[in-house]
């Protein structure tokens, strides 16, 4: 297969997966006694039906793409970073604190806030890598558990020391960030902000990094066969630092982007409960860790979620139909691993 074909294939895979998911969803809708065509028409409208809905979908896709890219890089290096939610939460919190308390011109505070969010997300991720390298603590487990620590810590911070005292609402959240520090909206009156541009740039940059750069090559080989990489002089420790730091930084950027572009404050639970982190992992798996494919899959998954809201607004079909479709997608991802395995066995014969 040529390289171009392989890239096209990586883009095609999430689309095929979504089509199969939609077929399964259709069955669920039929069982509920509703019209499949009407429901899916509503879903389409809810996701892409107007410029407003389209930008809404892309807004939702932004953190999914960014966390997905982070996970993709870690997966490529053979590290199972399941901690994107926690990295995103801490990145978001750090960005909020910086934006609230750092003096200076708005654009500069914005840039610094984004960078601090990335740094904190990256360090949180690297911490798990450090524990793996130093104490042999399984990365899968440590990244997973660090999510809870991050979420609960952030929850405490906004419930007590950083709590917004100005409003009447007793919500666990920071005060509103000054307007001059917000990520600019791309279109007036729409939710889409500059974070989406950052996500697309990150996808392209990560693609080039993984496919074309020497470090990306070393990361790929490390993920494919760590013995081969060691034999060829690739330093696992250094690659782990690069991969985990970058991976966490992308998740941190996702959190900072949400805080500075959408919420404009850190609101307890807003990042974790929306499951951006998990959707990001899902996008990566659908696209076999290809950055460009991850971006496409991220938009599709966001469309599924915003579309389902449209369905619930306008039909009797409940929001959960989207969960059915997502569940089938998950199945499809695992089935594809099985298929790849079978294919390999066949070609060996």
């Amino acid at each position: 297969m040529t390289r171009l074909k392989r890239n096209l294939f990586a883009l095609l895979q999430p689309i095929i997966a979504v089509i199969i998911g939609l077929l399964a969803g259709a069955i669920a809708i039929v069982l509920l006694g509703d019209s499949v065509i009407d429901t899916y028409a509503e879903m389409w409208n809810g996701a892409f039906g107007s410029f407003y809905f389209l930008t809404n979908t892309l807004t939702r896709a932004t953190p999914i793409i960014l966390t997905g890219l982070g996970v993709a890089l870690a997966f490529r290096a053979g590290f199972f970073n399941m901690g994107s939610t926690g990295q995103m939460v801490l990145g978001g919190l750090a960005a909020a604190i910086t934006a609230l308390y750092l003096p200076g011109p708005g654009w500069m505070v914005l840039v610094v806030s984004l960078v601090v969010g990335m740094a904190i997300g990256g360090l949180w991720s690297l911490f798990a890598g450090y524990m793996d390298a130093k104490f042999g603590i399984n990365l899968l487990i440590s990244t997973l558990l660090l999510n809870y620590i991050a979420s609960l810590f952030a929850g405490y911070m906004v419930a007590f020391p950083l709590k917004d005292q100005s409003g009447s609402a007793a919500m666990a959240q920071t005060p509103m960030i000054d307007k001059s520090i917000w990520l600019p909206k791309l279109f007036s009156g729409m939710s889409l902000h500059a974070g989406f541009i950052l996500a697309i740039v990150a996808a392209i940059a990560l693609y080039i990094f993984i496919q074309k750069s020497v470090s990306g090559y070393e990361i790929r080989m490390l993920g494919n066969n760590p013995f081969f990489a060691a034999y060829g002089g690739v330093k696992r420790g250094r690659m782990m630092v690069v991969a985990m730091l970058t991976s966490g930084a992308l998740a941190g950027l996702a959190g900072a982007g949400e805080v500075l572009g959408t919420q404009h404050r850190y609101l307890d639970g807003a990042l974790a409960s929306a499951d951006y982190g998990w959707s990001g992992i899902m996008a990566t798996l659908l696209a076999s860790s290809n950055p460009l494919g991850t971006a496409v899959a991220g938009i599709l998954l966001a469309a599924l979620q915003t579309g389902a809201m449209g369905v619930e607004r306008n039909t009797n079909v409940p929001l959960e139909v989207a969960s059915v479709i997502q569940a089938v997608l998950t199945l499809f991802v695992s089935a594809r691993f099985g298929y790849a395995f079978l294919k390999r066995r066949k070609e060996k014969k």
Partner: protein
Amino acid sequence: MTLLLEMKNITKKYGDFTANHNINFDVRKGEIHALVGENGAGKTTLMRMLYGMEEPTSGSIMINGKEVHFHDPSEAIRQGIGMVHQHFMLFPSFTLAENIVIGGEPKRSGLFDRKAAADKVNELGQMYGMPVDPWRKAGDCPLGVQQRTEILKVLYQGADVIILDEPTGVLTPSEVKELLQSIKRLAAQGKSFILITHKLHEVMEAADRITVLRDGVITGHMESNTTDEEQISRLMVGRDLIPMSRVANEPGASVMHVQNVTLAGAKGAKPLLDNVTLTVRQGEIVGIAGISGNGQSELLQVISGLVQPDSGIVELNGKDVTGDSVRAIREQGMAHIPEDRYMWGASREATVLDNGLMGHQHQYKKGGLIQSHKLRKVVSGWVERFAIKTGSLDTQAQFLSGGNLQKLIAAREFAQNKPFLIAAEPTRGVDVGAMETIHGELLAKCKAGDGILLVSSELTEILKLSDRVLVMYEGAIAGELSAAEATEEQISLLMAGGKRQL
């Protein structure tokens, strides 16, 4: 002797590709019939059809004069055909008896009767002169015993014709001798063997008849007492092999020196490396012989920086590199053809191009990016020079045959052009033509004044290429022989732990 099995006008096509063309092949009762040929000549395809794993495009298979059609191996087994695969198919955590009776377990009141199985295995072992301990776990047995178990398994299934696919690849010289004796004895008792191999001295020693395949057609068919190794290899390769002679260089300064290197084993076990000292000088090939598992792998890992020794030093080009990173050691002047191409030498999922880049990645770096245009040209050059059969440079390595992947790895390491090369099993699994190319490259490199450390389980390879031979036994150097004095017998003795006798 009566004709037991006959394959008539067998042709097998895969699309446009003809793997076997009009092959006639037969086996008599009680004979050993060797099937020889290079990788990809069509030996395996032919045997897969006989064993029911493939069906011929045209042609017929007759057993005892009756035509048969096999759709899967179980039908072939029922007709008395058994196959011992190149890679043993034993369950390491099962006992030998359990492995042998698998699929036909003796039962008592519906339950597996282990005692009866063990008795049965003892009986079989006695009958065929291949005793094994039925209660031992397969994983704990040496490879020779595992192979014997495979043969007993096939005999237990009632095979009259036994296909042995490259049976000696993993065995020590004494185990090979034992195996050949066993199959000769079994043949005398009326069993027939098809021996697939490319080791010609084994063919000459054991076979009654020889059939040579090249590119899917039969190029020769003879009685073993009317031919010799040279004629067979000519028929296999289709041309005369250029006899390679080693010109003894005057060795120069040391390029690699290992001093008193020790590496501890697991707690209580013997050390993996026991005070090893050796030197490789410019313009010489130092061969390391030994039964695998006697410290060769560990020695190479220490030299290449993958494992740190507990004591002792490694010097490369006069610089102490002990404790340096793999990359630093490579840059100090080492290239390395690793012993296990799939574990150390390649990534199956990566493309030919990516596999070719390993170890060169910092030479093809510009502004952090890979200079892929330049790299493509270089790797294409290797593909041409070593006749590597691959779809394209973007084909994944897992789709290359083992021999072709080995050629790619060898080409990659020769291209490093470093003053010291580790060549571990450089020709494992490659065919005669490729072996000739790789041996030629090794000798040329040596002639150019570089030092080579050759580790091989093939004694013929060691003897053919080395200026000096070191034998490793239980992690220590058991003896050193010069090219002039080294003989297969002497090396075998040292390999088995015997003392050096002069």
